[in-house]
């Protein structure tokens, strides 16, 4: 059949192959550019070491960069405390956003009819929430979490603000994933006399896991990438945080500060951006791996 291609078919085929090529091209351009500029930070300058030691030097520099504290306002030194703060912010954010996101999505797709007024109001307000600019979230988080709840500038208040931010994305994608579960499965579960609880936790959620993971990955990406909302909430302090009640600078704020606020910070800004993308790649790989592993285990149970 493929022999009788019409012109429309051919155009469509070309489109389907060009679009990803274009996107990949732009992505590789961007990341390649970052890599070239960022790697300079790990390239040893003039040094006496030679031979074998010269080869290990970049590795040492990478380790030093990942664990060291920022010096000279971040222009030299490393990003150790900033990585820790970023991790803590992400944990707070996700530990709040996951229960609320999953719960709301479950309610919207499993417990209320599409025409239900409560469901529609929640859905619409979430869409509006998705459009709130991050800087307004920042000021809002500052007013509510930092001042009203008395958390001041802290990782906790930053994480909570981020949780509000990623919630719409998380809920929408989870909802899509839940809707994707074939309705016959639900009918079968009901016919077999399963309780709602069992249907949700044993039939629907396991099947929707890959979709939920997409939402999580998008949410984590959004949270890691956020700058404006965190300047006013988790703050700017680049010291190692002692707890989530300390202020801590996130990686994206560090990049912003070095590239836009501190003269001569470009080198480390690019290097930090490179680290951020690497971290993200690792998180994505881990989430995907976990998801497929659990899926296989689930399939084995049947």
């Amino acid at each position, binding site marked *: 059949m493929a022999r009788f291609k019409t012109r429309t078919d051919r155009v469509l085929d070309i489109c389907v192959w060009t679009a990803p090529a274009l996107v990949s091209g732009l992505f590789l351009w961007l990341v390649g550019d970052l890599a070239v500029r960022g790697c300079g930070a790990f390239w040893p300058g003039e040094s006496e070491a030679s031979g074998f030691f010269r080869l290990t030097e970049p590795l040492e520099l990478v380790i030093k960069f990942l664990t060291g504290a920022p010096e*000279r*306002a*971040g222009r030299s030194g490393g990003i150790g405390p900033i990585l820790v703060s970023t991790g803590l912010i992400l*944990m*707070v954010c996700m*530990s709040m956003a*996951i*229960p609320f996101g*999953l719960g709301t999505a479950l309610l919207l797709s499993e417990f209320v009819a599409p025409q239900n007024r409560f469901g529609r109001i929640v859905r619409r307000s979430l869409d509006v929430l998705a459009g709130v600019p991050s800087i307004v979230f920042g000021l809002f988080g500052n007013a509510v979490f930092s*001042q009203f709840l008395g958390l*001041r*500038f802290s990782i*906790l208040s930053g994480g909570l603000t981020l949780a509000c931010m990623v919630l719409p994305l998380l809920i929408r994608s989870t909802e899509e994933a839940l809707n994707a579960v074939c309705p016959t499965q639900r009918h079968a579960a009901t016919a077999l006399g399963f309780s709602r*609880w*069992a249907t949700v*936790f*044993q039939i629907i*959620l*396991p099947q929707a*896991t890959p979709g939920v993971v997409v939402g999580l990955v998008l949410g984590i990406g959004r949270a890691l990438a956020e700058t404006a909302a965190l*300047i*006013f909430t988790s*703050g*700017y*302090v*680049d*010291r190692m945080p*002692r*707890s*989530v*009640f300390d*202020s801590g600078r996130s990686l994206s704020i560090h990049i912003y*500060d070095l*590239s*836009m*606020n*501190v*003269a*001569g*910070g*470009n080198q480390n800004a690019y290097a930090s951006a490179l680290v951020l993308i690497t971290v993200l790649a690792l998180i994505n790989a881990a989430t995907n791996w*976990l*998801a497929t592993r*659990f899926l296989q*285990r*689930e399939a084995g149970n049947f």
Partner: protein
Amino acid sequence: MCIPFQIRSYIALACLLSLFTCGCGAADGARTTAAPRQTQITITGASTIAPLMGEIGKRFEAEHPGIRVDVQTGGSSRGVADARNGLADIGMVSRDLKPDEADLQRFLIARDGVCIILHAENPVQSLSREQIISIYTGQTRNWKAVGGRDAPITVVNKAEGRSTLEVFATHFKINTKEIHADVVIGDNEQGVKTVAGNPLAIGYVSIGTAEVDREGGVPIRLLSLNEVEASVKNVRNGTFPMSRTLNLVTKTPPEGTIKELIDFASSSKVHDLVKELSFVPID
């Protein structure tokens, strides 16, 4: 009941995290009640001063063990507001105080010169005061008119309310409403990058930033003003005419540790830090 593994792990993760958070909270609460007050100094305000204050804070912490200096940004107006309502112990303000802010105590810690920059490839070597005014008010739209190539001028201006804009407009006596800009920017580095990426651009930025970037190989040229070379040295000796002040403000006259920190920040002990962050120390 049998909850599948991944759901259990979600739940376990959430529980673990909330436990962790509570634990930290309890520990933190215990510590802050036990420790005497004023071991933590919070400073908020201008993003321009924040990197400098952060470094000063670190050096102060090293000299005074047990004290933590937390520096936050958010802009000069935030510095004033937070110092007023007590959210911060010290505010940072990167401009002169307005008449309605006279209730605050002000401490000058450094100066920052503002200079005109062009792309290094631009053949124009100098511009007179009148030429600059006519370029910024949109009367001169082509480099040819001021001795350059036949090409349109890209006028880079700062956003409404920014203090560098105020310094610039006051110096050239231009009403900010009359400025005809092609690009509007926020931070200094954005200005440097904008001019460095466009050979037809003219902009104005902090001298310190421009000098550091020029030495780092960024293709920009600093223009002299009234025959005075634009350099940190000339701002320091007072001959360069365009500059702004970098200040710390407090609500009440400072006491104790806060006074020590403010004195420290305006002393010669931190001049090397001021210079390193490309500002001009106060003698």
